């Protein structure tokens, strides 16, 4: 196929269309390939994000595509954040391995929460954080997770308008009105 603009747009539409057709079920267990993270890095990051916005009656960070959001933003907007993410994830796992002898994803929910609370205050042992600042890492992950979950879906997160639905913001969008139709 000749690589011209029209074909390119066609391909985009095809891709976009198929994403829209995917059933709105959990994607957990399937491996998504990311541009900025290895599968293991993505698992660890997902677990951290899930702590920040956990699943309850409503899907949490993982199922709403927050990791996808972060991956996308690093790729298209903030390449300078990639290093911080990689170093932060590595530091988390290096700490977990030394203390629990397993990675962050294998920790119990409560141990994960405790770890992040300590990290937020900057009180994890500094020896694992020689490259990245633990507080800065936490601050950025928290902020990006909130953006991904509560921002507009076209940025890669907030899948199926999940946060809008949760907050009772009626949807879907009525074009030209910048607001949502009645339920």
């Amino acid at each position, binding site marked *: 196929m000749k690589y011209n603009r029209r074909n390119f747009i066609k391909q985009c539409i095809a891709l976009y269309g198929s994403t829209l057709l995917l059933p709105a079920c959990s994607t957990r267990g399937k491996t998504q390939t990311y541009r900025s993270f290895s599968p293991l890095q993505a698992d660890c990051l997902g677990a951290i994000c899930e702590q920040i916005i956990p699943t309850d009656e409503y899907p949490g960070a993982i199922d709403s595509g927050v990791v996808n959001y972060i991956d996308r933003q690093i790729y298209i907007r903030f390449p300078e954040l990639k290093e911080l993410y990689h170093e932060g994830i590595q530091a988390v796992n290096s700490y977990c391995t030394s203390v629990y002898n397993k990675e962050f994803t294998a920790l119990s929910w409560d141990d994960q929460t405790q770890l992040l609370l300590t990290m937020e205050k900057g009180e994890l042992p500094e020896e694992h954080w020689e490259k990245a600042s633990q507080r800065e890492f936490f601050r950025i992950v*928290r902020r990006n*997770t909130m953006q991904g979950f*509560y921002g507009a879906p076209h940025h890669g997160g907030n899948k199926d308008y999940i946060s809008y639905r949760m907050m009772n913001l009626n949807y879907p969008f009525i074009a030209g009105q910048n607001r949502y139709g009645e339920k």
Partner: protein
Amino acid sequence: MGKNKYITAIVVGAGAGGGIVAKELATSNIKVTLFERGDWPSYDKHFNDELISQRVQDLGTSFGPDGKKNPRVLISPDGKRNTVYRAVNHIAACVGSGTVSYGAMAWRFMPEDFKMKSTYGAVEGSTLDDWPISYEDLAPSYDKAEREIGVAGDMSGIPFAPNKDNPYPMPPFEYSREGEFLKNVCQNMELHPFPVPMLRNSVPYNGRGACIRNRYCVGTACPVNAKNGTQNTVIPVAMQTGNCEVKTNCFVYKIHTDGKGKATGVAYFDENNKSKTLEADIIVLSASAHETARLLLNSKSVEFPNGIGNNNDWVGRNHQGHSYTGAVALFDFDILDLTTGPNTTLGIMDYNHHNKGIIGGGLLANEFFLGPYAFTDQRPPGSPTWGKEHKKYQRENYQRTGLLVGPIQEIPIFDARVTIAEDVKDFWGVPVAAFSGGHHPLDKINCQFLSSKAEEIFIKAGAVKIWRRGGGEGQQGGGQHQGGTCRMGNNPATSVTDSFGRIHDMENLYVADGSLMVTNGGFNPVLTIMALAFRVGGHIASKWM
């Protein structure tokens, strides 16, 4: 008259001030070239996008500028310099600028706001002063702004409103659920609530339709063009005369002078980043408080070794913004009705002046709806900022949270300033603006005062939890309400322009934007900037034609 058949003028910046000056000159048969560093705005590019807007800029701005091309330098009190490549402290960069995406509150200052020093006396450590003009001098220009740009409101019966006997061209907006509720509370407290005057069409006006009550309005452009800015009012009028050419994507970086007190033209980078010059008989700077100061300071010559108009070192001084203060309250019922927007409907100006022990003061208004993301930071002090509780709070309390906030009048200081960072260049190689200086200690006290007043109202309203906003500390950023950097005054030693915006040392170089403001009032600034632009533009037209 110049060497051309017509008198020619250059206006730099097509925002609030620039659009109006261009129209005033073009309709007086002066040939105007209106320079704008950005493009014409469009609604569709960033619609319904909380993360890319002029209000929340986490992923960028919807109407520019591009932070990567326009770095800025922040100098902290200890002298540490930090170069930032985000669009910090800009208003916007497009035709219309802030007037495309603003909240559109349309305040007149009060007579006291023009006489701060006579009203309150000199303040130690502050450059607080009277304006060279009075409220009465500006009133006819306020009238013009309200009619030609278009304001909806009703101030009748508000004893403090200088225009209480002077109806707006459009009826006011109805109160939102929160507005109605707080209006009743305010009335019971014997305060004087009124519908906030808005630069939006409550009814069809000026050839465009009425507002559709979008949920989210501030930060974005209006999808039905019912929000009134210079881009859909005065600038089209100027173009219709055939006397105004708008040069978009053209960035002016230097003003040329003849060494004898006359400006001769400007140097600019065109849409292909080629450096060009254009000459004119009159030049008006309306690039906003930061960029006008930067342009003057970057225009060095033998005559002006420190930049034009800056022989007394006043350009860039008295930089002001506004701490937005007040209180946040949690109710045990849905105080917000999200089916109709954008919410800011109730205002009070009981606390703008004559507060015991306070210099100045500020208005309070119920705030525009926050988007879901902005709401993630609205929590009572000490609440979890993430995790299950945070998520639950988000869905349970989004519609139960009220905000009563307003801009506090600042006490200006000489050391809050915009300077040039000679060693940091923008995309075009032009030295960028640097910001230094903080706040007068009274700003913090004033913020506490206004916060406590908002808190009082929420207590009477029966809120279950209330927390104050505070503010008035830290670095002066200017932000969306940037002003004061080319103060107008009668004494050339302590001001930059005369009372008509003409730079003291110059015959034909004027300023018409937020830079002129001597003090910033306890009100959002745009209507006052528009009125100033009508005054400056009208003056130039009458003097030169």
